[in-house]
């Protein structure tokens, strides 16, 4: 197939380090499913066999934040739950991303009152918002793929030095 032609005689391929790092980050991104309310059902069904998320590398939902890369906030966040959410976000090691699933996590949804935080981006910085009440499993997978594209386009290795000119 295509890769053997690039390997040549020595079995070495060259690529940019950024591309390899980004490829590694997107290919096995384990979600910390923060399923709070009705969106959790759609997240579970996205993880199940019909709309499979394991095809995209998200084989299992880690319950521990120390072992997760992506936090999917699925559902309404109450003001009592907000410090807990922030604490779990802080416990995740870098690199980490947040996907806000559903209307209640993105903007407060239908609830505009004393109990619900109006958008989880008041607490944690969000990368992708998935709209819907609840979003279909296909919509959640679409949001995750957009996050993958965003990561592939990013530049994780920063160099603030000028390249050496000869």
């Amino acid at each position, binding site marked *: 197939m295509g890769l053997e032609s690039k390997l040549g005689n020595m079995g070495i391929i060259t690529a940019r380090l950024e591309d390899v790092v980004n490829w590694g980050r997107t290919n096995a991104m384990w979600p910390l499913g923060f399923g709070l309310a009705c969106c959790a059902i759609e997240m579970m069904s996205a993880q199940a066999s019909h709309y499979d998320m394991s095809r995209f590398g998200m084989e299992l939902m880690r319950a521990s934040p120390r072992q997760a890369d992506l936090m999917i906030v699925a559902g309404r966040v109450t003001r*009592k739950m907000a410090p807990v959410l922030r604490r779990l976000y802080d416990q995740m090691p870098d690199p980490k991303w947040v996907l806000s699933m559903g209307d209640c996590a993105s903007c407060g949804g239908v609830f505009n009152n004393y*109990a619900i935080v109006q958008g989880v981006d*008041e607490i944690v910085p969000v990368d992708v918002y998935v709209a819907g009440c609840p979003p279909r499993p296909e919509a959640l997978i679409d949001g995750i793929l957009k996050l993958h594209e965003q990561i592939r386009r990013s530049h994780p290795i920063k160099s603030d030095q000028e390249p050496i000119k000869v």
Partner: protein
Amino acid sequence: MRMIDLITSQFPEVVSSPIEFRGETTLVVQPDRLIEVCTFLRDNPALQFDLLSDVSAIDHFPDHPRYAVNYHLYSLDNNRELRLKVWLDGEQPHVVSMTSVWPGANWHEREVWDLLGIYFDGHPDLRRIFLPEDFLGHPLRKDAAQFYEEPQFTHNFDLIESQKPYAKE
């Protein structure tokens, strides 16, 4: 005799104005002898209201008396329901707690305290149950602050955007 007649004959001035609407019976009780009435309702062999289903309260803000605390009782053996209404008023309304009669009233009364601010005397552990502990105010009162956020349309988008507390890292 009918259940209402049995109760009103036992407590003539305390229990008044029975209302019957579509099979639901409501009695208004004076708050000072509430424990006596409830103990009678629970222990009398003809009535046996041994389950307190719910304790809730209503705020009728501009009217006086302002708060109405409703106790929903259910008798398991006789399959009968009853509602007791207690009218309260004032800046810091308080009523005696039902936990000595029905221990299941504990969390219901904590909910009423949390959301409406009605104090229950004699409650063993009256603190907030739904809202965070450092929340100020009782939100379900009609004159409480409305935590309402304006929807962002095009004409006020920038204004709300500048005031919204976004998290930075």
